[in-house]
């Protein structure tokens, strides 16, 4: 371009050359599909050519006059708005394009005059300064217009439309493990939002209609070297919009100290909210912001990614800091599922983050994400261990009344019922926990292949958790003095365990072998119970002398009495025991009935001669009916009932 300037033509012929060149440039400029760089070169060339022309003319003094006229015209258009209370872009497209044209013209004149300023023409210098003054005024104005457009046409979107936010039932933890009831948990509804975000949602953060306006402001500001001003204004508005959206989502800044001191219920809901906000902010908001930056600043090298980083950095760090605070908090068992939620969220956003912040300047953010992911993983494992420890160390001083299903058992089984949803993550995290298990594992994705599921790391850990649970339950059973009740307790609890496994996806991880084994186990306890309770009772009815037809009356009387007393005793005690599962209760009653009622009937049948005697306190029917009262959990007595 220096060549152009130094070779200012001095004779007529050159004028024609310049005019021809001018035509060519104009024709080229009219072509569509020009790259922005090329277009800028053409515009520069155009202004230089017009300057050369005016300079040639200036031989006769006409050139500068022409330039001055053009500047006057542009100035009028620009100055008119300095006193106008309306915003230009609000006033209509014609006004806006007139204004841009005037700014463009001023810019060209500035460029052209600068190129010629070597000539130290005083008049020329004066015009240049005037032009630069006008340009500064216009740039200042454009900055305001930009802010106004961004604010006025900024759009907030409702997160509800993006994701259906499902509320997962939260298992409330308390030290005694008593708060969990056996409510059915809808397993499918809870996490359906985590899988359907493969498609990115991009929204218009700024109304699509005004994007060309913003672009045209960007273009003219960057052409006039006011790029930094454009960026600062653009960043300031968009950054604040993001922060407003952030608080609109209900996410607030929390200090680490606050998070560490927070109560679990409150923290749990904040962790939930974090998981939710993180997805929306990254997948929707930042993806859209990135698009906006690219639309507006696309052709300007690294400017777009610089602006994007500046806009998003503070909010991202704020989200990350909450994650850090959660990960460093005490590793309590109840945190496990929430931590896994956070881990999974972050893991599935990593690719988005890596794309959004792919430039070198953004690698800092990338790194922070990766670090947090690792930390959350460690924290989840620690919570998992804490869960196991809590199960093993849950101690009781007194036996659990009635021998029913212990709350610890309910808590643990209802909790681990959710683990299959986190199967892949847990497998990934647990893989390194027990080297022995990891060796067997070759394929990290276990899919639904049942034969593999039972040998994945999670399955191993699940079984180890239930075996911790079983040994704790055994310990708890020892607290009962009555051996029969020990068996009832274990039967109830192991039955519950098996039911929970069979009734959920857990069965795939525990496998048929485990289920068979545990079925046998609780059946064994049922048999042991029968032996412990009824053997001594039935022994009264035994025929000591099978060869002879009947026993002596006194023996009969004695046996009868013994039986009644023993039976009444059992009745009194065992009506207060509990078998919560109706089927199990029914089964046990039937098998007890078979044993006791049959023996009693036989006993009475053999000794028909004596049955009128008062010593037969209970009829067979009465015994049979009485058995139905057992295990209902409320103590009753036969002594006070009507006598026969």
């Amino acid at each position, binding site marked *: 371009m220096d060549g152009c300037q130094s070779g200012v033509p001095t004779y007529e012929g050159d004028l024609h050359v310049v005019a021809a060149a001018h035509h060519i440039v104009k024709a080229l400029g009219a072509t569509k599909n020009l790259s922005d760089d090329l277009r800028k070169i053409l515009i520069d060339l155009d202004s230089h050519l017009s300057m050369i022309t005016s300079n040639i003319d200036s031989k006769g003094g006409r050139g500068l006059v022409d330039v001055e006229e053009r500047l006057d015209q542009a100035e009028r258009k620009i100055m008119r708005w300095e006193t*106008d*209370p*309306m*915003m230009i872009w609000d006033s209509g497209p014609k006004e806006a394009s007139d204004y841009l044209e005037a700014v463009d013209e001023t810019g060209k004149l500035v460029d052209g005059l*600068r190129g010629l*300023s070597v000539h130290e023409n005083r008049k020329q*210098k004066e015009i*240049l*300064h005037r032009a*630069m*003054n*006008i*340009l*500064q*005024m216009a*740039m*200042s104005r454009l900055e*305001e217009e930009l*802010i*106004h457009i961004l*604010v*006025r046409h900024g759009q907030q979107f409702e997160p509800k439309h993006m994701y259906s936010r499902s509320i997962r039932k939260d298992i409330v933890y308390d030290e005694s493990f008593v708060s969990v009831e056996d409510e059915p948990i809808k397993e499918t509804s809870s996490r359906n939002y985590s899988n359907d975000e493969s498609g990115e949602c991009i929204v218009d953060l700024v109304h699509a209609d005004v994007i060309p306006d913003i672009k045209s402001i960007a273009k003219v500001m960057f052409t006039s*070297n006011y790029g*930094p*001003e454009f*960026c*600062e*204004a653009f960043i*300031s*508005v968009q*950054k*604040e919009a993001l*922060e*407003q959206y*952030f*608080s609109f989502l209900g996410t*607030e*800044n*929390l*200090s*680490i*100290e*606050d998070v*560490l001191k927070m109560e679990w219920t409150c923290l749990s809901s904040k962790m939930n909210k974090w998981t939710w906000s993180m997805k929306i902010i990254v997948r929707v908001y930042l993806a859209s912001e990135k698009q906006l930056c690219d639309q507006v600043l696309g052709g300007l090298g690294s400017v777009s990614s610089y602006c994007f980083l500046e806009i998003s*950095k*503070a*909010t991202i*760090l*704020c989200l990350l*800091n909450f994650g*850090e605070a959660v990960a*460093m908090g005490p590793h309590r068992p109840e945190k496990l599922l929430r931590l896994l939620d956070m881990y999974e969220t972050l893991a599935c956003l990593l690719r988005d983050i890596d794309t959004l912040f792919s430039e070198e*300047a953004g690698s*800092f953010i990338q790194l*922070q994400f990766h*670090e947090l992911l690792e*930390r959350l993983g460690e924290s989840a494992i620690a919570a998992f261990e804490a869960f196991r420890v809590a199960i093993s160390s849950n101690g009781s001083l007194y036996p659990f009344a009635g021998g029913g299903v212990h709350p610890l058992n309910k808590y643990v089984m209802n909790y681990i019922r959710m683990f299959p949803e986190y199967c892949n993550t847990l497998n990934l995290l647990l893989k390194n926990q027990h080297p022995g298990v990891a060796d067997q594992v070759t394929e990290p994705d276990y899919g639904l292949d049942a034969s593999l599921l039972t040998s994945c790391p999670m399955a191993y850990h699940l079984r180890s958790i239930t075996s911790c649970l079983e040994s704790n339950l055994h310990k708890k059973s020892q607290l009962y003095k009555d051996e029969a009740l020990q068996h009832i307790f274990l039967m109830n609890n192991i039955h519950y365990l098996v039911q929970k496994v069979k009734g959920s996806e857990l069965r795939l991880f525990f496998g048929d072998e485990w289920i068979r084994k545990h079925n046998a186990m609780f059946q064994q306890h049922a048999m042991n119970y029968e032996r412990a309770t009824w053997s001594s009772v039935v022994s009264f009815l035994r025929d000591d002398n099978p060869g002879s037809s009947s026993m002596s009356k006194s023996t009969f009387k004695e046996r009868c009495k013994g039986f009644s007393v023993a039976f009444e005793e059992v009745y009194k005690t065992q009506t207060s025991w509990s078998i919560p599962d109706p089927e199990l209760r029914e089964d046990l009653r039937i098998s007890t009935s078979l044993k006791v009622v049959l023996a009693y009937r036989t006993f009475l049948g053999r000794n028909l001669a004596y049955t009128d005697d008062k010593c037969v306190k209970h009829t067979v029917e009465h015994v049979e009916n009485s058995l139905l009262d057992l295990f209902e959990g409320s103590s009753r007595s036969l002594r006070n009932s009507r006598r026969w």
Partner: protein
Amino acid sequence: MTGTDQSSFLGRISIRRNQVNAMEGYHEQEIEDLELFQKQLSDRFAELLSAPDDGPTEAFLSISWIRKLVDVFLCCETECKAILLMERDAAQISKPPLDRLIPELLERVVKAMDICNAVTNGLELVRHCQKLAEIAVSALEQKPFGEGQARRAKKALVSLMSAMHVDDKESSVQKTAERSWSFGRRSGNKDRHHGHYRSLSWQVAKHWSASKQIHAMTMNLAAPRGPEASCLPAPVYILSLIIVFVMWVLIAAIPCQERSGLTTHLPINKHVNWTHSLASIHDKIGEEWKKKEKKGMAGLLYEMQKMEKLGQSLIEFTDSYQFPGEKEKLDEVAAQVAELAEVCRRMDEGLVPLQMLIREAFHRLVRNRTEFLDVLEQGGPVV
């Protein structure tokens, strides 16, 4: 700078501990380790103290000086932890008075993490100032220079000044955050440029206050006396003091949420050798803070102070500038612009690395806390 020192120091401790763990004379070795550590600390702080008040490189409280300070902090932290934890029986850590001192230390660590985050936010403001100063520089460097460029520079400088004189009070944050957009012609746009740096992301949390954090961190921080001064309570005190001190310097230097009433007193035990330089640095910054605090300012960061001075002077120039301007004045301004450009260049070079370094310090504190907690857990509660 102290990389090799440090690795040899750590190696020394580790070898010692392995060799003498079960032997006699363990305690003497420990005292020796501690003395060596204090000697190193003393040297490091003396080096920091020796930085010139003004000058092209590593001036006192400059970005590069602060980076050095944070480096020193990271080294101390590693070494202190080595003295406290390396090859040590967990039960020792959970005995009195450590069962009280360590949890107190960990509380300070948590507060320091929040301060690191507040300072990271503050550095965003410093970066914003840098961008505005760069605009002013580029306008003032324009040739030919005219009133248009003077106005452009002034606009940037005025924004710079109001961004610098950030009011870190909570009330102003609220006001900024709640201010609704004004769509009327040009109203409400005046302070837009720095408004957002005081908005939501500036906050660590509602009602959080940097000065209160420092105050809380100094509570119960007392130098161990008598026999305790030469055993485990000593490194706990050293680590605590250094954390509080470094955080205090960061807050004084870099703008962050609510600094009013920042205490200028830290419980530094001046009777031991290693604290001499540290105490001098503390006094020097404390004096400076008292002088500047009332004015409401962006912090004692050398580059910001310099920027403020130059900015003020350049605003005066742009205010009274008339084309073409006196040659003498223009030369004077050119020198100032060159100086401002140099400040911008140093910020451009140093701010991002400083931000990363502070993030590293944050992560280090996180890990540090975890390690202590693990050891405490192993030691179990002392019944």
